[in-house]
């Protein structure tokens, strides 16, 4: 048996990341403006960084309890109340994780039995499918469309349900489409969820980045807290990607199960990040609001630029992504991204990296300084004009 054959066969079924391939291409090209970055362009606000430094000076360099510092869980509980209106018990219903990434993994491993189906609206964040498979489940993708604002509708959901359906994995505001689900949109899903007794994993990492109206969590509807695990974290709202910190909140039985896995596989989240995160939540000094305001400015610049280009762009209402339809150029997602990179030195991510329903789209991140974004949009405009003329 070769070494390769000895590797877990599930891994062979997981296709290589579409992003990885493109990364190498971009990394080897000089002078590129990248609109392909899925993390804030801001560094962590200084008051948070300073708290991390202080904790190191004070000698906080040890493990914490498995669930995370109680003081942090208490702050998280207060924060979730402000954000979603739901009360979570910091002792039994909150778990501090190493990013939402770990949260996704823990929730799936805690809930999936072999063969269970996990329903994932697509285009989707890249890690849901592979983590589902590693947990022994079967990802079932639900194709969402720009005509519906890339939202999940009860009809779409009903359409994929089988007796094996167990978990609905939601991510709104969405990566890669920028879609959000309003209270009305979510309410329509509730009867289907209840009828089929689904559990919900709700990745709300972009909740703060909601530009029109307020973020609504599906767990805030009557009866939904009992069947929902909310995942959230510090990466996006507080520009803390590298600190690797997130949390899960949900029914105590599920949190206990997740904690059991976390305890043996991770032990605890880094204490420096936990200390800094306490300050991030406690000191509401407007730093988050300022970043969100800046993203919103860029979002509007971007939407206008695309309407001038004549490419169809469903208006993104959350996160920091836009997902324009580039099929009018006659190019595939990958061709578009590659040619744009070589001809105009602008990097975007091919929509196909987020599943087959992303084909014909590209993902643009506007977590990019305003002046770079404006320059990149100018180049994309020139590129699109050239390609559409050629086609005619």
């Amino acid at each position, binding site marked *: 048996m070769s070494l390769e054959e000895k590797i877990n066969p599930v891994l062979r079924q997981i296709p290589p*990341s579409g*992003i990885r391939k*493109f*990364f190498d291409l*971009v*990394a080897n090209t000089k002078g*590129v403006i*990248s609109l*392909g*970055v*899925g*993390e804030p*362009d801001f*560094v962590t606000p200084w008051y948070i960084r300073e708290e991390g430094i202080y904790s190191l000076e004070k000698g906080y360099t040890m493990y914490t309890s498995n669930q995370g510092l109680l003081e942090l869980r208490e702050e998280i509980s207060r924060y979730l109340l402000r954000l979603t209106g739901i009360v979570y018990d910091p002792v039994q219903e909150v778990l501090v994780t190493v990013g939402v990434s770990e949260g996704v993994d823990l929730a799936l491993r805690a809930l999936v039995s072999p063969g269970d189906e996990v329903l994932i609206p697509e285009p989707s*964040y*890249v*890690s849901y499918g592979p983590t589902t498979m590693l947990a022994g489940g079967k990802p079932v993708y639900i194709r969402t469309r720009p005509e519906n604002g890339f939202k999940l509708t009860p009809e779409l959901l009903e359409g994929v349900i089988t007796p094996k359906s167990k978990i609905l994995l939601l991510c709104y505001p969405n*990566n890669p489409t920028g879609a959000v689900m309003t209270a009305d949109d979510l309410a329509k899903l509730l009867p289907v969820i209840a009828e089929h007794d689904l559990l919900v994993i709700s990745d709300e990492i972009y909740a703060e980045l909601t530009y029109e109206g307020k973020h609504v969590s599906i767990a805030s509807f009557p009866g939904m807290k009992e069947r929902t695990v909310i995942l959230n974290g510090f990466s996006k709202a507080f520009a803390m990607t590298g600190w690797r910190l997130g949390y899960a909140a949900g029914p105590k039985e599920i949190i206990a199960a997740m904690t059991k896995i976390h305890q043996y596989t991770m032990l605890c989240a880094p204490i420096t990040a936990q200390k800094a995160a306490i300050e991030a939540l406690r000191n509401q000094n407007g730093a988050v609001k300022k970043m969100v*305001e800046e993203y919103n*400015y860029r979002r*509007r*610049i971007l939407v*206008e630029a695309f309407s001038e280009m004549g490419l169809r762009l469903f208006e993104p209402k959350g996160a920091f992504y836009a997902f324009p339809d580039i099929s009018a150029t006659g190019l595939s997602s990958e061709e578009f991204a590659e040619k744009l990179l070589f001809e105009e030195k602008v*990097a975007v*991510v091919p929509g196909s*990296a987020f599943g087959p329903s992303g084909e014909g789209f590209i993902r643009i991140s506007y977590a990019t300084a305003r002046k770079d974004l404006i320059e990149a949009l100018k180049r994309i405009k020139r590129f699109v004009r050239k390609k559409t003329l050629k086609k005619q």
Partner: protein
Amino acid sequence: MEKEILQLLHENAKLTPKQIATMLGVTEKEVRAKIKELEERKAIIKYHTLINWEKTEYEPVRALIEVKVTPQREVGFDGIARRIYQFDEVKDVYLMSGDYDLAVMVEGSSMKEVALFVALKLSTIEGVQSCATHFILKTYKHEGVILDDEEEDKRLVITP
């Protein structure tokens, strides 16, 4: 909308009304009207440029002067402040709480010029009791802007 327009222009006075309108999701006409109104009521006084003089050959010498004064009947501190702020060499004047009364920023082309200005003009004004001159050696941050070179983007070029 007013606050947002002011913040945007404060950060970059070169933004056009059209650009501001796009960013705020309002019409260009509304933005033009608002800016005109702000200019008319002198909320917007002028549009200026933040220059890092250290990167030019014209770096001026600046000093912060702590001035103690005897307030005057009827005009209080304002009378002396007015006599001070009329000088072209004086860039900022603040009335302060604490040990001294007026903080005066003076600018000149050499240390000698600034020192002479303080000795001959400032300290001789009636009602000025004392002047303590502190020369500025380096500017780290000015009007909310850190003057060190911009930090480079350290992120990976593509991430999910």
